[in-house]
């Protein structure tokens, strides 16, 4: 590995520290009655309201459609995710220190897997919350209506416009991935050139 690639990998790994202080994902629910905004942040180890009391308010709204309440402590992934990022940071820094190219490759592949699995898992949770509604306690029942939030993007659900986008921590993590990917591409090009030469 070149010094440049090692620096890039170290940089990407260190950038991942941001996920411990900045939220990964942001879901907003816009409705006329919430001029001050209503939404939640998904953080590496929890989910919190964007304003005080928002999570309670979202659960309060969801009870009308029979959606079960969002209880951050009951989501096991949020207990694992801090360790997953911890591993990526440690492994990346080690790879940068040792300068092993296979470690860079493994880091990028692992990170890509983490992103794919996380998004798939996020989709699964969204599907589950949005479809498995309690028919007995649902107050508002619209035939055929489900309430799965968008994975990424914006969706109208009854009076609420739900939007789901990466938040600062999520963007930084994605940027770190890109930096790692760039390092890998540069490494491979260099080796191709060396082989040609």
């Amino acid at each position, binding site marked *: 590995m070149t010094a440049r690639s090692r620096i890039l990998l170290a940089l990407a790994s260190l950038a991942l520290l941001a996920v411990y202080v900045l939220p990964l994902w942001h879901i907003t629910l816009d409705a006329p009655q919430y001029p*001050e905004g209503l939404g939640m942040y998904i953080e590496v180890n929890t989910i919190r309201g964007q304003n*005080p*009391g928002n999570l*309670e*308010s979202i659960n*309060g709204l969801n009870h*009308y459609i029979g959606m079960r309440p969002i209880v951050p402590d009951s989501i096991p992934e949020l207990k694992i995710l801090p360790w997953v990022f911890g591993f990526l940071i440690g492994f990346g820094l080690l790879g940068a220190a040792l300068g092993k190219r296979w470690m860079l490759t493994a880091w990028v592949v692992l990170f890509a897997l983490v992103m794919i699995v996380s998004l798939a898992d996020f989709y699964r949770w969204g599907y589950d919350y949005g479809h498995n509604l309690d028919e007995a306690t649902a*107050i508002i029942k619209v035939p055929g209506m489900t309430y799965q939030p968008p994975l990424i993007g914006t969706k109208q659900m009854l009076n609420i416009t739900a939007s789901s986008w990466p938040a600062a921590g999520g963007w930084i993590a994605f940027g770190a991935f890109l930096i790692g990917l760039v390092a890998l591409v540069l490494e491979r090009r260099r080796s191709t050139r060396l082989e040609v030469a």
Partner: protein
Amino acid sequence: MLNRPVFRITLGIAALVLAAVLVNACRTTGSAGLADGDAAQRVYVPPGQHDEFYAFMSGGFSGNLTVHGLPSGRLLKTVPVFSQFPENGWGYSEETKNMLMTSHGFVPWDDAHHPELSMTDGVPDGRWIFINGNNTPRVARIDLTTFETDEILEIPNSAGNHGSPFITPNSEYLVASTRFSVPVPQQDVSIDSYKQNFKGTLSFIRADRPGEMDVAFQILVPGYNYDLAHAGKGPSDGWMFFTSYNSEEANTLLEINASQNDKDFIAAVNWRRAEECVAGGAARTMPARYAHNHFDEAHIARHELKTEVTVLEPSDCPNLVYFLPTPKSPHGVDVDPTGEYIVAGGKLATVIPVHSFRKMIDAIENERFETVVDGIPVLQYEAIIAGEVENPGLGPLHTEFDGNGYAYTTAFISSEIVKWSLETFEVVDRIPVYYSVGHLMIPGGDSRRPWGKYLVALNKITKDRYLPTGPELAHAAQLIDISGDKMRLLLDFPTMGEPHYAQAIAADVIKDRQVKMYQLSENKNPYAVKGEGETRVERNGNEVHVYMSTIRSHFAPDNIEGIKVGDTVYFHVTNLEQDWDVPHGFAVLGANNAELLIMPGQTRTLVWKPERVGVFPFYCTDFCSALHQEMQGYVRVSPAGSDVPLAYGTGGTLTTASR
């Protein structure tokens, strides 16, 4: 055909009638006080936008404080202070009723006259607003993060707490002076022994420690009527000026008997000197009974009776009080932003006397005394007067300032406001107001740095200003533009009760500090529930405590059985919502008190004493959600001695109470 003389007479009469009609038409146009030009635009606040100022209007005989926006005049809120307020349960709920306790027991009403914003460096800082209760002497502190009264102190040795609660530049003290002198201490004496037995008191109340308001000391003064006050500022900081009338010491038909002397007095009190005298042991402690009520950390009103008060006699503390002779039963006393001029308004005067603080100090140093009354030197009028404003209208009462070198004074009798220069003491402009203005208010107009821009005339008589509503009419406030050379009438708006005086503050100072909800996790009420799992009903003898929760759109529990005639039922209702602007209400059929409004995260308690057998509904009164109408419950009341078990529940079988 008419003959010539008859024709001429007819023509003459016709001309006279026409002239009279024209003159009258002009007068009518004039007296309507039509706002002109762009007045509508100046007061228009577009939908969804905010006013520039919060205006706090005293509720007078309603005992409340109302909050309006300026320049729109829109009513934003009524803050209950001294009066029970069934709309939200203030003074009815178990948590708030202690706030209205006094040494005379529960007093559910008062006459609230003067709102006063807390100050830092002589400028309103938006922490609190204070207001006086005239009738059963009290002062209240209202927190401006919650717009709720959270402390009330009764004033001992006082009657008619009118000259209150004027504040010192750093909110060290509020004052409370006695409009009615009374025997001090109270005793059974003949009323016509007034001159021997009646005294006035000037109380200084520690104001800058929430929950610890207390009478620091009272100054015992001659038995006049002490009317209004204002603190010195800048060079005159450390002094407080009180107007007095009835220096005749009349005890009957004051209308005539208290209007005999050409001059009464402004009492100038050096309160820093008073502090020295109290610290030096010159004061004495006197037995007294007065209430102090405030919210504790659980947001429950605590009531305590204090038993003594510190009293200071001017004769025991030389250089404490001086009398400034002031013509014609002075009413208002106002200190200009520089702190140099002390402006008095004489109810029957034809000039406005303006005293100079610098001259007053000179006169004291040079002992230019006219006489001495009860040990209090009376300074020579000529030695202290800076000037007299000529032709200020009849019956000048109150003055406020725009910070640009002008003063504005109300004239009650001639129903107008005059603008005059603090440099030349000459009137530069005048505007009629409708009708009979008492106080006026300029945002920050009594402070070191007025915001200026607007003036609100607080009129006592309304007559034809609005659509008539029977014999009783809302009082009229008028918004006047003072940003230019000429005053311009912009808007009339009706007000609640008697908006005797008002204060205003730039909205920016307080609007971002508003509490939107109480944190449920920090609710310290011993009867609070933090979730539906904690809701329950408990019996203790014939007391039944219902630990109830509200969340859109149900009560828990919403079915209660086993209540008996003769029980006292406490509904402790906790609002579990953690969202802005989602209060829930609670009302139960036959309650002899009121309803409750419970803010998000808060607990409030209503007592209900069922007198009949039956099943009675309760419901949410504050439209909370699409299923608000479904938010209801039932209480079953059985005969005394019945063996129906105490049980409760929501949405399933009832749980039998554990005890």
